């Protein structure tokens, strides 16, 4: 079997002899780790995001957790467990009934996404077409959208800078697009997702929430996104990753919060976590939660 990259020959391996991981490695041009776990966490003591007793009128109840700088906190759970709702509440996109949020130790009042972004939080929605992208704008405009203040002087936009930044991030994230002037509508799903990521990287938030970051994305691109998350945490950012794929949660998270029925049913360190232990927490019955967690 010949492996080609961009139509160029990279190497030959005997089919059936190679492992999947090797092929992907050859494709993406470097070693990748299949069932790998994240690099050990240099535990920082600075809490980047602290959420306490977050509740909404009809679903979430008493959600509390913290994420430290440089830490990746995974959120696992079955569908409808309420992970997206937690993220949207923190981000000010859904109203919360009670609960406090502190960023870098300072309590912040978040009543809208604008408040959240100002506080240094970025959110990559699970539904990127609806909530993440302005499909009729081009790649560079979407990339700059969350940080337009930095790209303008007295309200006047600096187009050259927007373009240069768009190109820089398109290159860094390997966005497959003919140019940064391409409308995002014309990109394929995975590349659209990369544009959303670029938008939040440009904004340089302290806390980043990825909601199903690899939904509908192929295996090569997935690995790229995992590595990106790793490098973000290495830079000291606090990252939350919501995912319905257990291997994915295990692959990227230092710690894992598991949710069921709008509550957090437990936290697991990556070292002690495996698919079984996550599933156990994810399937806690509602009856037990109403009484006490057994």
């Amino acid at each position, binding site marked *: 079997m010949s492996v080609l990259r961009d139509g160029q020959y990279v190497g030959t391996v005997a089919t059936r002899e190679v492992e999947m991981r090797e092929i992907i490695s050859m494709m993406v*041009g470097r070693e990748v780790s299949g069932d790998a776990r994240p690099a050990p966490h240099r535990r920082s003591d600075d809490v980047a995001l602290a959420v306490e007793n977050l509740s909404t009128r009809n679903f979430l109840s008493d959600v509390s957790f913290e994420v430290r700088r440089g830490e990746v906190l995974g959120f696992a759970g079955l569908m409808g467990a309420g992970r997206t709702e937690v993220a949207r509440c923190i981000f000010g996109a859904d109203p919360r009934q009670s609960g406090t949020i502190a960023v870098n130790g300072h309590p912040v009042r978040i009543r*809208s996404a604008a408040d959240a*972004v100002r506080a240094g939080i970025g959110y990559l929605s699970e539904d990127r077409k609806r909530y993440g992208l302005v499909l009729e704008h081009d790649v560079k405009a979407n990339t700059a959208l969350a940080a337009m203040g930095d790209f303008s002087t007295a309200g006047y936009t600096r187009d050259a800078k927007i373009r240069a930044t768009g190109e820089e991030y398109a290159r860094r994230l390997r966005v497959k697009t*003919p140019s940064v*002037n391409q409308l995002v509508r014309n990109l394929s799903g995975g590349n659209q997702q990369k544009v959303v990521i670029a938008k939040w990287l440009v904004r340089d938030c302290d806390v980043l929430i990825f909601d199903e970051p690899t939904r509908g994305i192929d295996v090569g691109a997935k690995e790229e996104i995992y590595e990106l998350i790793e490098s973000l945490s290495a830079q000291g950012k606090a990252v939350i990753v919501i995912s319905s794929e257990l291997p994915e949660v295990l692959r990227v998270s230092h710690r894992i919060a598991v949710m069921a029925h709008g509550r957090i049913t437990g936290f697991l360190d990556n070292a002690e976590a495996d698919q079984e232990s996550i599933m156990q927490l994810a399937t806690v019955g509602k009856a037990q939660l109403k009484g006490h967690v057994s």
Partner: protein
Amino acid sequence: MSTAATAPTTPPVPVTPEGTDERRSPVRDALRASLQQLFVFAALIVVFAFFMAFANNFDPVVVIPNILLQAAAIGTMALGATFIIATGGIDLSVGTGMTFCAVMAGVFMSSAFMNLPLGVGLLLTLGVGVAIGLVNGILIAFLDIPPFIATLAMMMVTRGLSLIISGSSSIRIENPDYAWISNGRLLPFLSNAALIFILLGVVAAVLLGKTLLGRYALAIGSNEEATRLSGINVRLWKTLVYVTAGVFTALGAILYSGRFGFVQPAEGLGMELQVIAAVVIGGTSLAGGRANIVGTMMGALLMMTLSVGLQMMGVAQQWQLVVTGVVVLMAVYADILRRKRAASL
């Protein structure tokens, strides 16, 4: 250079777009944009040529400055409306709001009322435009009232207030300087109103293309929720868009009433439809997210050319309505066809 993604120095990428994509898109985009403007432009040329052939004395040297003058006020209002429509909104109060601004201009500057100096009067008039825009903006952006309803109510309210404040009589603004704003000639061949309209077009084009206001207006029109979730204060910017439109409305009022030195408080109803038609013919999408200032100007000129030309041809006014309706349809449909074809290329 748009080669970022394919530059040979970038780290290896699984699959790279190939040359054809590379070449195709920016050119196509530019072409598409210009075709779109070209279309109204083409329609304008055709209509103009038609009248030159068939209307009495349709002499371009006389008629062009005339059309520009007559289109100036509505065109100015349409410039502002373009921003609103870019956000996916609509402004039904633009006509009566214009009249209200004009009535207030009369109240400020007419000798029968406050008789304020020109500069003060003009500023206050702009302030009235800002106030109308602010009320519209707050109703729409902060109270979440649909633009159609908010501005419909505003239409009724401004109309009522115009009549109340003026006591239903027309107001005369005698100040010759006020008339000069519209009717004077800084340039030998163009009235000031036409000149101001063109300059305001440039301002509007810069605002739309090169400022946060324009970018956010278009982003909101394309995907309001995504814009909000990018941390942009959508309520604030939407309000600013309506305020901006209010300023253009006030400017339109100054050009309109300045032309006659006279304000009739019952006027203005129905003008909103002409304004919206001009914007849409110009290639701005009522769904929001796509706007074209040059197109709006051409749209306003096209409407006015039709009205002048048909009248000069001696077409009965009933038929003018029918013809205008059909031309509006054809203009918008041609634009739709062109866009469909461009999309499937």
